[in-house]
């Protein structure tokens, strides 16, 4: 490990309800002001889907097999979604506009394809994927910054863009394959998720995690054998990084989603999950099937009244204990 310690997050997609409380928590914490209005340092997207920014998975970035940075498309403001405003005053208070509407015709937003997914009724499928900066062990943003203004904090591995040193060249925006670095046009600086370090330093979990009402997020240090991250990532190996093939070595991990069975022509249940395994493997790598089997086995144990440390961890009996910050 390049850093002394690495803080990390695990998200259980089986518990994510798509409520966007994390998104709004982050929004009011950091991005409802100062040129950050269009940014969602944390967003939740419906998968399969275009995501945020639109089509980011196909833009490129990250590293190739040889460890070389790969070029990507620079997202436009339309790809992120224009943060439209409303004519409250004119439509409601002065009666000068006939109805309340956005000031631009909405054509895209951070959650535009909510609940859409793929497949045909009744064999459609979708699930929610919350995303934040992965605070990678090998950050492409950091590698691409010609100013050396992006660094990893040695004490916790949080990746930051030095807001004094940054000159707004946007190489980092291009290089990050997750498109989790944003350009602040007002300030001419690049900004991104800071893993709420001011909170972490005070022993408080990130806003997205502490405010997650689905209780899907755990935070801790990767090397802490008594912590939840180690239990889920190392011990039971049920938490996987998103797109490991992009080469950045994310420190955010996901428990992949189970799904109910598909239906046959007579409405009978087939022995085939509605979310194709191959699709999940394209996101989380080849171990998905194994992880889903582990969860199935451990759920069965709980159903039969046997102990399961794994499921007890995933249940997360005490909210405060989902975060181990020392």
């Amino acid at each position, binding site marked *: 490990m390049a850093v002394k310690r690495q803080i990390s997050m695990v998200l259980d997609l089986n*518990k994510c*309800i*798509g409520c*966007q*409380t994390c*998104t*709004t*928590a982050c*929004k*009011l914490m*950091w991005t409802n002001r100062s040129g950050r209005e269009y940014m969602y340092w944390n967003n939740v997207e419906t998968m399969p889907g275009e995501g945020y920014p639109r089509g980011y998975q196909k833009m490129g970035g990250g590293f190739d097999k040889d460890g*070389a940075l790969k*070029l990507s498309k620079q997202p436009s403001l339309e790809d992120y979604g224009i943060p*439209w405003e*409303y004519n*409250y005053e004119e*439509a*409601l*208070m002065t*009666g000068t506009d*006939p109805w*309340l509407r956005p000031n631009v015709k909405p*054509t895209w*937003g951070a*959650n535009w394809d909510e*609940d*859409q997914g793929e497949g*045909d*009724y*009744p064999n*459609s499928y979708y*699930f929610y994927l919350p995303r934040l900066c992965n605070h990678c062990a*090998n950050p492409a943003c950091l*590698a*691409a*910054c010609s100013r*050396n203004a992006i660094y990893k*904090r040695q004490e916790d591995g949080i990746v930051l863009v*030095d*807001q004094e*040193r940054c*000159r707004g*060249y946007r190489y980092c925006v291009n*290089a990050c394959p997750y498109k989790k670095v944003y350009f602040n046009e007002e300030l001419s600086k690049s900004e991104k998720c800071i893993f709420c*370090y001011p909170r972490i330093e005070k022993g408080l979990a990130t806003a997205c995690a502490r405010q997650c*009402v*689905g209780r899907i997020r755990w935070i801790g240090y990767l090397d802490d054998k008594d912590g939840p991250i180690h239990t889920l990532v190392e011990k039971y190996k049920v938490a996987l990084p998103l797109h490991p093939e992009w080469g950045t070595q994310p420190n955010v991990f996901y428990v992949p*989603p*189970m799904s109910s069975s598909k*239906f046959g022509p007579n*409405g*009978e*249940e087939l022995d085939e999950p509605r979310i194709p395994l191959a699709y999940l493997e394209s996101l989380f790598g080849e171990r998905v099937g194994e992880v889903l089997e582990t969860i199935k086995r451990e*759920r069965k144990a709980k159903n039969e009244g046997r102990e399961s440390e794994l*499921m007890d961890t995933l*249940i997360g*009996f*005490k*909210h*405060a204990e989902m975060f181990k910050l020392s």
Partner: protein
Amino acid sequence: MGMWKLKRRDFLKGMGLTGTGVLLSGNVWALNRLEPIGDTLSSEYPYRDWEDLYRNEWSWDKIGHAAHCINCMGNCGWDVYVKDGIVIREEQIAKYPSVNDKVPDANPRGCQKGAIHSTAMYEADRVHYPLKRAGERGEGKWQRISWDQATEEIADKIIDIFEKYGPGKLKTHQGSGNQSMVRQSAGNRFSCLVGGIQLDGFTVVGDLNTGAHLAYGNPLESFTSDAWFDADYILLGMINPNATRIPDAHYIWEAQHNGARIVSTAPDMNPSAIHTDLWMPIKHGTDPYLAISMVNVIIEEKLYKPDFMKEQTDLPILVRSDNQKMLRESDMEEGGSEEVFYHWDLNSNKPVKVKGSTGSTDKTLKLDNVDPAIEGEFDFDGIKVTPVFEFVKKEAAKFPPEDTESRTGLNADMVRREARRLAEARKAIVMLGYITSFYSNCLFTGWGYALALALTGHGGKTGGLDTSWVVWNHPRWTELANFGGKKLPRYEAGGIGEFKRGNMIKGARKHFDNAKLKEAVGFDLDDMEEMMQESIDKGWMPYYGEIKGMISVADNTFRRNKYVDEYRRVHLEQASELYVNVNVRLDSTAEWADYVLPAASHYEAWDLRTQGFHRFCNVFTRPVEPIFESKPDWEIMALLTKKIQERAIARGIGPIEDGDVTRDLHTIHDDFTMNGKLMTDYDVTKWMVENSPEFGDITIEEAAEKGFIVLNEKAGTNQPLVKDEPYNPFTAQTDAKKPYDTLTGRITFYCDHPWFMKMGAAVPTGRGTAGPEASKYPLAFYSPHTRWGIHSNWRSNKFMLRLQRGEPNIYINPELADKRGIKDGDTVRLFNANGEFFAQAKFYPSIPANTIMMEHGWEPHQYIQRKPMNNSMATFLQPLEMAGGWGHLGFKYAMWNANQLAHEGSYDIELANPEDISFS
């Protein structure tokens, strides 16, 4: 580790930026007097002072507490962060204690709407000052006036109405927007004192689970959400908790991780269905057929549990074979009770009187040494009698899953398997959300599932029906809000009041084909009108007729009612003398008022709230002062009553006779404030905290410091709220053998009310809804609750809208869209006999191609041309829900009266004509 450094130049070259970019960056370093840094990945970065930038953004002056007092059963405690007198953000308190170590704790209750309220409270639709209309009603022209002027003019108008028309002509309905104790008490106490009309808040919006009331005698006795966790079978019967029960949903998925099987029945694979072990894609509105088919399987495969049936249900109660009426004591004895019934005791082979019924003096469910028969036919002094269960069997036998498959669209083998799983479960819960009661067959859905659960012994700690509401015992609140019971508002049947006063029959007659309607739901509009009139005439359901003035509090009545243009027209016409709206924002109802009085929002007043699926009372500590000239509801009513009292005295008005009571406008302020004792929101909060037994010994200072109070055992209404156990409903019945609040004292599956007999509904059965079959319009349509608002609250908040499509949208299957030439994002026109509305089309492959969904709650002023969905939505009432004079059936506020229905109508769809949707 050096690899990426070597490659960077290639990367930059690729971006076409090497020349200037790299050179420039080198120059800037020099100019900046910063040395280039070699390795920012694995060595300590030297220039970290800047990090204070973000640290400084995370700062505040003080933290207060609040929940949100709207019609959401979340009720979540928040820390409210204040800086320079402005609320900058909120974050869940997240410190609720665990009930016990085996159940996940309730933290951090909250959702995305709560998390952005600090933006909504400062939005430009907030009402800042008392407003008086300066043009015609609804014209959007306002004059700012003083509180003194506003309250004086309103007071005089109210007195005028009393003088001109007498009492009973004021509709003072307080809507579901005020669910917290202090706010709710303000409006309700005012209604008590003036004798205003207050409609049943459940049925006005179609929220009452009438099937649950019919079965259990109490639709509001349900589970706290932590009691879901130890279930091993949960059927999300008609509910989408991931979208509409956000703070509680985690318990379902934690139960799943704990080994429970989670199943959903829903027409669309909604955000909850995606996580279930099985999604049953049921055809819209056919749920009673699924329930009764499950009953069919349970009976046919003998999966039922006779012990539970005998003790807890009316299934062994004897029914006369000759007239299918329950055998009553009055049939057998001179002067006998009509509310005492019989079992056939297999031990003595004799009939015995049933203990615990309404007419019985022995209030217990204990059978002692009686073994009541549930099957067979017996002779009782020449009268042939047979237990209720025989009738249930006979009816259920008509509905094997193979036969209902064509209605429900559900594979029969799948239904059989789920019936078995429900029967085998240790603790099974069937959850029915408020969408259930938006359908005309709600009664049958709730009743059918109650039967499936009772047959399989699921009650109390072994499960039961979750009706999405838990009511706690609050004697001081009840006393305050109802003026100690000394004077009451004119409580009115909600669905009936809205339907009649809103002239909704007109829309129903335009939309539905009467003959087809009768075929679909078992009655037509003539039957319905006749039965409604009978119900009113017989005094089963109260309806108070024409109004002259309206004071609307926390109610978006011109948004939520169906056939709404006509509804609004009639109300404004009747309330010709006065229409006052008390509101935090200029919603679609406030827009039409004569006067708008600005109310304080959630973070601007002291208050308490317990309603929710949990045992916590959240404390609102007025983190900031009311913005501009807004005032807490209590203070508004105190001011208004002060003026009424002053003006009444000045005008020489004394006590006004109103039936058994007098309306004393000349002392109304003294009465309202308990002679000056309760003048402010703080006074009331303090009084409530310090006098309510369910809060225990706690001071307001302690409560405010913490932000919440844990309710003690006295909070349970049906049984004590046990300190270290989740709350399961009806354990007083299953464990302590206390009778249910029903005619027979038992869970009821036989109703010999003449209407139920006439309509073939003496026992649970299958029943459909109107839908496309009863009209000319081919597409089924439903408008469920949304994850993006609580009804219209936060529906027009820009932070919420930016995470949606920015404007009202419908959900359409791409296959249907393709047939109609509609692309995702297009504006479409939905139309039927009652009108049209426009919305953006959003593709949703998880909905059937013959169905359109639109989440409800959009403000009429958000629609193109201000044509809201509700205007073209026709509705009617289920006549059986208006039945009375039979045991526990009869008008009971929040318990039994007819729902306003929302999902019976249908539509057709086409691409919108560009000229119709332009903004001009």
